[in-house]
């Protein structure tokens, strides 16, 4: 019994020692510190700022609901923030859908079609646009998509005068800019998922008589689900908060099936530039953050479900 007690004491000591292992503490502490410094603290300050006021052009600490009440009053009337939020959600979700639709087949081609010794080269080529400036890419798209831009000029040059595309200053143009921005990141996320699918499972499916299409539907696609959901969530969140593509390609209030309505992020920027009211801007930004968190939570839930279903 004494021996057993001593054994238990030794085990407890080892557990405590293990818990106090500096390497383990550092590996847990550093991410926590990073998260606290670059996420929790700024977010906390943003929340706090939303309750402050501007007096004589100075931001004054307060605990006022004035900003939120004013925003709520303008949600469906006057400024109609709700319309801008709806436009942003529509653009973000459709961008995420099309971004995955573009990137996923590309990744499948890199993983399953490209020669194994060329896969990394193709991956590097696919993510190469990431190393160029986002703003420059948007200005390039402006030149391409303009009424007298390269695409329409080329169509005229080949004799298709009647086939002129009018994309600039629409939310379709906004999506194009966003997809170009997001594609390299999504390709990497999806590549990690697809490249890690156990090929023996695909081979087993084929051995059991599955066609290529069936093997894709029953093995590859379910096993890619987590990656697809993560990529789509990421694309939706970035698109929801992006300002530049909506401003430069969408023309500030690009048209979509919801009409010619600005994105919520563009509206926040314009309001800040007009009034320089930081507390009110923070309150508006909080709405943006909450919706992003909702998208993230939905994505995480879907990814989890995907994991469970994929076993």
């Amino acid at each position, binding site marked *: 019994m004494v021996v057993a007690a001593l054994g238990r004491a030794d085990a407890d000591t080892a557990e405590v020692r293990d818990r106090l292992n500096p390497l383990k503490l550092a590996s847990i502490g550093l991410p926590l510190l990073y998260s606290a410094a670059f996420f929790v603290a700024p977010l906390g*300050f943003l929340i*706090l700022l939303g309750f*402050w006021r501007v*007096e*004589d*052009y*100075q*931001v*004054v*600490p*307060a*605990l006022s609901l004035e900003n939120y009440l*004013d925003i709520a009053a*303008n949600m469906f009337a*006057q*400024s*109609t*923030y709700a*319309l*801008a939020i709806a436009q942003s959600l529509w653009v973000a979700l459709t961008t995420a859908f099309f971004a995955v639709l573009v990137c996923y087949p590309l990744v499948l081609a890199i993983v399953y079609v490209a020669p194994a010794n060329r896969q990394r080269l193709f991956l590097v080529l696919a993510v190469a646009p990431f190393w160029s400036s986002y703003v420059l890419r948007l*200005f390039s798209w*402006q*030149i391409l998509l*303009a*009424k*007298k*831009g390269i695409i329409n000029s080329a169509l005229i040059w080949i004799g298709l005068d009647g086939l002129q595309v009018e994309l*600039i*200053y629409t939310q379709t143009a906004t999506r194009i800019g966003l997809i170009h921005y997001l594609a390299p990141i999504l390709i990497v996320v999806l590549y990690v998922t697809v490249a890690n699918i156990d090929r023996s499972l695909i081979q087993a499916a084929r051995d059991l008589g599955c066609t290529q299409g069936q093997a894709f539907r029953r093995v590859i696609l379910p096993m890619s689900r987590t990656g697809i959901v993560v990529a789509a969530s990421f694309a939706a969140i970035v698109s929801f908060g992006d300002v530049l593509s909506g*401003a*430069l390609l969408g*023309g*500030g*209030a690009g048209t979509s099936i919801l*009409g*010619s*309505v*600005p994105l919520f992020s563009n*509206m926040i*920027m*314009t*309001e800040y*530039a*007009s*009034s*320089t009211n*930081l507390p009110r801007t923070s309150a508006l930004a909080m709405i943006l953050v909450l919706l992003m968190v909702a998208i993230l939570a939905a994505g995480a839930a879907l990814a989890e479900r995907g994991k469970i279903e994929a076993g």
Partner: protein
Amino acid sequence: MARKDRSDAPSTPRVVAATRQQASRRGFLGGAAATGVVAWSNLTIFSRTADAAGKMRVLCWPGYEEKPVVEEFEQKNNCKVEFKTYIGGEQMLQFYAQSPKGTFDAIISDAEYVQKLTAQKAIDPLDPKDYPNLADYHPKYRDFAPLRAPGGKIWAVGTRFSFYGLSYNTKYMSEEEAKTWSSLFLPKYKGKVALFDWYLPNMSNASLAVSPNNQTPYDIPDAQLAKVKEWLFKLRPQVSVFSEQNQGLVNALINEDAWVTPTGDMEITLIGAGHKNFASTVPDEGSIRWTEAAALCADSRNKELALKWIEYMSGARVQSELVYTKGFKARAPNMKVTKYWNEEQTKLMSYVPDPKNPGKMLVETLIDKSVPRGLPVQQPDKAWIAIYNEFKTSKG
């Protein structure tokens, strides 16, 4: 323009803790957070140790810091001028209000914001007799109402100005059409109007369109504001692009995605870049005119140098450079600037005789037709912003 269509400068929020805070937990937290922001913000402006003689600090719009503008002053006075640039009058007031006293020696302010600076006792009046260059100014800028101070003094000296008239592609819009704001409603301009994305100039131009030549388009009752809103909503289907950047509007015009913009000045940049098919004018109903002016900070630690700088900025040579910077074009109140321009520049800047108004230069006609920009008087600015937001989200 208070927010002229230029490149973005980083805007830094600065916060001063409320002095009336109680020694409560909330007060402490608020104060600590505010102090933290102040400390952080101070790093972003410039070192507070740069107080030595021969140095001065200016809070200004972009352009004043450019070498051709400031170099002569620095060499002549053997000094260094440091600049903190801002975008927008509200931002200027924030920077000033949240900086420790004595941070700035001079301020370039939009004329309508001078009254807000005087309300804060931020600037000292100037004696116009100390500025002999004012004799060369256009009469309206020699004695510019928004800058008048008590006792025959002035609050600031004008440095540059320009118009929010119509800039248009002459292939699609005729000179005759450009004479009236109502031409923007012609069916052919549907989806062909580009707007500078700021409520103030657009709503005040709309105010002039519904009340031609009103000298106080910002000082309007609610009923008049409702008409402005109606006019804007009618314009909405015509608008294809809202841009906060000059470049966005220029690109839209060059690519013919937009044919006209009520932003003025665009033709100077476009013609200068070889696109000869652009022109601009102030419609007969009038348009808004923005003005910048140099003021002396009341808490300046180097008033002597600051006064010299203000005097320097009133000169024709420096204004000829200031209004013709690479990224931005404007007009100079000192009419002698033409001495420093070639024929092409003089014509481009409209400092040439107006054939329709003998004895006047084109720029003088434009000044006569335009109204100095102001701020909403009878309503809070957020009421105007809400209307502008509604206009942007409306279908017209």
